[in-house]
């Protein structure tokens, strides 16, 4: 009788025969070592982009939204496109952490930390757009329902933009807490290894006095579960509410009931693509191929091909309804403004189709799913496609809406609109570089948790057991 059980389908979650010590060493090494030249170059580029973004926003705040090429008909353009895009990216982190935690998907451990960090930074970037797209950003606090001296002046709870305020701030808060609570044991590990006083102090404060006692672990586990439970509906609700910005309006192309699921699927799609982009770089740069394995990458590619196809069905449904409803206004938006290749914005629709629906289909092939270069390339293609999707929804619906008299001239961004977008890339990567330098990019504690049941060590252990006579095993394990 053999006790050996090795899954033929599931790969190990961690490669190599790692000990706990080794895991800690591998993951904490970048924090303790001096950053590489490459890190500096990347960081400075990110900061430069951020500075350009700050200047672009400065111009917009000082001189007005006229710094952008929006007009009387196209009131939102790159600003809200970028907002929705970043929010979408910010979905994967929480999805990986929360939903996969609840579903007990062991493979999440390799990528969850970085994915959550990405979420937080992406939501930070996203938040810039609705704030700075305001004509009078200095009055932005009007959107907060605070008791005021202006009589019974309250916010408008009917407005989807207000729902956004709540949805995004809640999402950000919960994601941040979730991320941080996961970081506490790892910070404690870094603290315990600290070789300077300052490090010890800073990581000490950051780890909130974690001692690793069973009580701490028990509470930590409970908190993680509670936060996962809270985050799970948020993953679905945030993009649902973002989609309400459009779905509840009267504009043909926006006024669509399938938006909530379609937006959520799209968000997961783009979020996973962004995680792929980042993780492929991180595992390479920090040499963490053993923790972020090809199996992880393949799993995420499966999610990408699934959500990409859902999004594709949504596109086709829209087109179908544009015809089936016999609503001439919707018909025009879907069939002419978008789907007609030679209409002014036809290129963006077909760009979207090519990037989001057609190209991810290569992930039906296992070989492709497991190819790092293809994955990396596709992850970028998908995010370009998802940017197009939001651009298509916003601009092609607005620029030719109900009254032909108001149809707009061709909208293309100014350098300051592009600069704002570039600036959020700067913000994102500045944060990410700092994260990669000062935070454990992989959840050490969680890797150690799965180490018992996966990887070479586990295999060896099982092999040892296998060679044991049954009696010995029983003897050993029966108390």
């Amino acid at each position, binding site marked *: 009788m053999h006790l050996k059980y090795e899954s033929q389908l599931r790969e190990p979650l961690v490669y190599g025969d790692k000990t706990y010590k080794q895991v800690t060493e591998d993951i904490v090494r970048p924090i303790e070592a001096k950053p590489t030249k490459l890190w500096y170059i990347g960081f400075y580029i990110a900061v430069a982009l951020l500075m350009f973004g700050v200047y672009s926003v400065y111009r917009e705040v000082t001189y007005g939204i006229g710094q952008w090429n929006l007009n009387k008909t196209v009131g939102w353009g790159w600003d809200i496109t970028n907002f929705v895009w970043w929010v979408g990216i910010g979905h994967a982190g929480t999805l990986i952490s929360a939903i996969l935690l609840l579903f007990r998907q062991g493979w999440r451990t390799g990528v969850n930390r970085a994915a959550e960090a990405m979420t937080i930074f992406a939501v930070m970037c996203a938040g810039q757009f609705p704030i700075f797209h305001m004509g009078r950003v200095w009055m932005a606090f009007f959107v907060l329902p605070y008791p005021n001296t202006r009589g019974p002046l309250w916010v408008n709870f009917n407005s989807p933009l207000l729902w956004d305020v709540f949805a995004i701030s809640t999402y950000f808060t919960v994601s941040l807490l979730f991320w941080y609570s996961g970081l506490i044991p790892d910070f404690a590990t870094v603290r315990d290894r600290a070789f300077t006083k300052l490090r010890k102090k800073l990581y000490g404060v950051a780890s909130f006095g974690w001692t690793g006692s069973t009580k701490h672990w028990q509470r930590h586990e409970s908190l993680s579960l509670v936060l996962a439970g809270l985050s799970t509906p948020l993953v679905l609700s945030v993009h649902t509410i973002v989609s309400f910005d459009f779905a509840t309006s009267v*504009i043909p192309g926006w006024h669509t009931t399938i938006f909530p699921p379609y937006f959520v699927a799209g968000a997961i799609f783009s979020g996973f693509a962004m995680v792929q982009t980042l993780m492929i770089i991180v595992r390479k740069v920090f040499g963490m191929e053993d923790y972020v394995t090809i199996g992880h990458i393949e799993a995420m590619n499966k999610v990408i091909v699934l959500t990409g196809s859902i999004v594709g069905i949504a596109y086709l449904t829209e087109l179908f309804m544009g015809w089936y409803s016999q609503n*001439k206004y919707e018909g025009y938006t879907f069939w002419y403004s978008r*789907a007609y290749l030679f*209409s002014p914005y036809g290129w963006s629709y077909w760009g979207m189709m090519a990037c989001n629906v057609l190209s991810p289909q290569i992930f039906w092939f296992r070989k492709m799913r497991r190819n790092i270069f293809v994955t990396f390339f596709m992850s970028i293609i998908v995010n370009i496609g998802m940017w197009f999707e939001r651009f298509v929804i916003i601009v092609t619906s607005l620029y030719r809406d109900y009254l032909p008299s108001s149809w*707009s*001239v061709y909208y293309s961004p100014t350098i300051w609109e592009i600069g704002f977008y570039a600036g959020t890339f700067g913000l994102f990567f500045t944060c990410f570089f700092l994260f990669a330098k000062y935070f454990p990019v992989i959840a050490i504690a969680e890797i150690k948790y799965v180490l018992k049941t996966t990887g070479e060590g586990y295999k060896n252990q099982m092999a040892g057991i296998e060679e044991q006579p049954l009696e010995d095993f029983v003897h050993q394990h029966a108390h």
Partner: protein
Amino acid sequence: MEQKKHWQSFGELNQSEAYNKEVKDEFNEDLPFVAEEGNSFLDAKAPRRDFLKYLGFSTAAAAAAASCEMPIKKAIPFANKPEDVVPGVAKYYATTYVQDGDAVSILAKVRDGRPIKIEGNDLSPITKGGTSARVQAAVLDLYDTARLRFPTIDGKEVTFEAADKAIAANITGSVVILTSTVVSPSTKAVINQLLAKYPGSKHVTYDAVSYSAMLLANEATNGVRAIPSYRFDNAKAIVSLGADFLGTWISPVEFARQYAAGKKIDEKNPEMSKHIHFESVASLTGSNADEKYLHRPSETGAIAAALLSAVNGQAITGITDAKLKSGIEKAAKALTAHKGAALVVAGSNDVNIQIIVNAINNAIGAAGTTINWAEIDYTRAGIDAEFAKLVDEMNAGAVGTVLIHGANPVYSWHDAEKVKAGLKKVKTSVSFAAKVDETADLCKFVLPDNHFLESWGDAEIKSGHFSFIQPTISPLFKTRQWQDSLLKLAGSNEDYLAYLKNFWSAKLGGVAGWDKALQDGVVTTSTGVVSGGNFNSAAVAGAVAAINTAKKSGKIELVLYQKVGIGAGQGASNPWLQELPDPVTRATWDNYVIVSPAMAKTLLDIDLNNGGQADAYEVNPPKKVVKVTVDGKTIELPALIIPGTDANTIGIAVGYGRSEKLGKAAAGVGKNAFALACTNGSTVSYTCADVTVVVTGETYPVALTQTHSRYDTAQGNRTEVMKELTLAEYKHKPSEIRDERAKELRGQISGGEKLNNEEVLEKFEAKGTIYPVYDRPGIKWGMNVDLNTCNGCGACVVACNAENNVSVVGKPEVLRGHEMHWLRIDRYYSGDMENPNVVFQPLMCQHCDNAPCENVCPVAATNHSSEGLNQMTYNRCIGTRYCANNCPYKVRRFNWADYTGADSFGDNQRGEVNDVVLDMNDDLTRMVLNPDVTVRSRGVIEKCSFCVQRLQEGKLQAKKDSRPLADSDVKVACQQACPTNAITFGNANSKESAIHIVRKETPNRQFYVLEQLHVMPGVSYLAKVRNSEEVAHHEGGSDKAAHETKEHA
């Protein structure tokens, strides 16, 4: 005990003379605005208006001086309140808009000493309260920063005394007075006084756009060198040979009102006048015609001759084009069918054509019915040949002194170089121009005239119709009425006011009559009898013969036309008019070459029937530049494709390419096309044959405010946007529009398929939504626009700008779709692309009861009032633009930059906003702002408020009088300005209100734009009805074929 004496100064102790005087006068300064006893305030040394002017100006100046980073603006209250001025309450003074020949009776609204708005004078029997865009915009000219602020000699500032002396010393021998048409009888008397003083002198009248041919033709056929009055309201059949009588021809405000009378439809007995239009380049009038035929300008004479033959029952010869021929036959049929109620007008400046037109009018019995010779129109009197002779005389050195007022031939004469050369040879050249125009620039002396709002005067617009001018503000600068200057030169000691007063007191029965005339603004002595004059047919045969021998052109031809806003250049320096989209082309801030879609295909290689090419043309502002060559003279302008233009004809607007000295708005805008005009020996011709047009390969951006013009798309005809039909269809089935509405709404009601049409319309409000519907008691403001009487002239747009302080943004911003107009006039085409039906639709905020903008604002900055107003709270707005996106009518406007200087960020305009915008923020220009309306700052949305400030004022008035609100209490600015009364406004809940009555009495033509969205708009429209036999109203069909037959990928 002796009383102790206390003293404060040696003066008091000694009771010195100086001290006593000081004590006596301590509090006894003259109040500046108190008049001497027995005299009127206006005769006081510093009249009331001076006081108000200083007050207003110093307030503005103080405010300006205080404007550092965070401007603190102070309003200084009256220390001594003038007796009849209530701060914050406007006064209205009857006066007259006079510019060149044009004269319109108006009321000037004066707030705290400064005129801020012009309204039509309801007492005028000519215009009955109507205005035009140019009249509405004239108040801005008063505050033009480019106005001359002092008299000059050779460009250097002098005093009037010095200038008078110098001119008097320089006059030797005779003088020539060169003016535009003078409508003022007293001024004519003053001119005669001056002419008498210098024997051999003469007065030459010069009109920038000449009506010589009409004057000469009338002299030939009726023995009078004059233009009669036209009565379009009496005409059941109107044929126009290129006369743009609704836009620019003679007296458009009057004609628009008369014309609308024939277009108003009584639903019970639907009848309309029939208007057949022949033209070469799309015009405002042609766009309104029931039927329109296109032809080359060189064919105008042949068409007139053919029409004459046809009305006389003879066969048509000389017209080969079948369409045109049938058009002439139709026109002749209509004219003869309505003998005695028919009218033919022609815009041509060719004497022969005008003689033939007179003959046609004689044949159809127009004289005495639609043409009134008892009332001569005095607004045009220039004879080209007389001016040409003067130019020759000047060049010959025969003119020693020329006094110029109103005329600007250096700009508008086709041979400007010759005028320039001539003017240089004149020893004493005096201009009375208010601004340094092209002619004044070459004059030695410039004695700037007052603006008409600063002037005294009179106008005899037609015989027996007098209109008076009184000042509404003291002259802002060192300017003087030119009549005063003339009187000085004539050696008179009297000033013009005294002269005028005497002149009229004698005629009107003393000072009381004069005062009454000033108060009313108009005096009518005409009895209203319509006279036919005496027609003499002797000249007709010769004219027809001359027409028949005229050569035909085989090449492209050119038409020079005037734009409604800019005219012959009078509006070029006015930013409101420059930014007013031309009703026909919807372009601002430029002139351009108008080409037909057919010519675009061959010349520009743009096929509007090709979806991709049409899109590319529409969405990209840069247009191809073409080089037009006429007679060796060339002009390079961008080409705009305007349907309704003859395939072989191009059009260019005059009035552009003005001198930089006329101000920021005029500088560098367009090119002067007057140079392309030519003369046929006696009159100037504004059409040219044998024109070559070549594409240069360059592009130039044109700021259009509307890029797409058809509501019929490849995915369906958007009949919810616009409804039009023909009179025949309407008579056949009066409920056509109602049925169509029901069809559009039925699908929005659950179980709608079981309801009949009337039930659908009735139940739509309650059943078209899942939300409960509430009653709306009390006041419910509503508006109705009759698309049949609206002719698209744009008076309302400018009136709205003036009333609501709507920002001017300048061309670069219009190009980016940033124009701020609260009210726009959409223009749609339907039918054949080469010669489409055109319909104009004024569109402002629809004040929806179920407004999509209101529920999306996160901060509730836009909300609904209990009176049905969609309100905008600027200081709550944070500028998310969500409301603008969600507005199906796209009437919301965003402040993209600091257009008004009202921003809390200092110094953020330079380099970001146009010079014109900066000029509009000048302290002088800002005096035109309406103090009742907030000036919006950067970053907020704004839109039509239904002139809420006027509604409040009207309600308060009714409340003070303890009576219910009446229609007369409230007139919104666009409604007031409209020359055709196309706009009805009022409390729709009141059974007596006009809006209620209109909606009740015209159920069949009524519709709401995009009604199917269930936004419940507060503005209703009456469908356009065209008096043509064609069946224009059907789904898709030929419209579709002509338009975007686009393939879907």
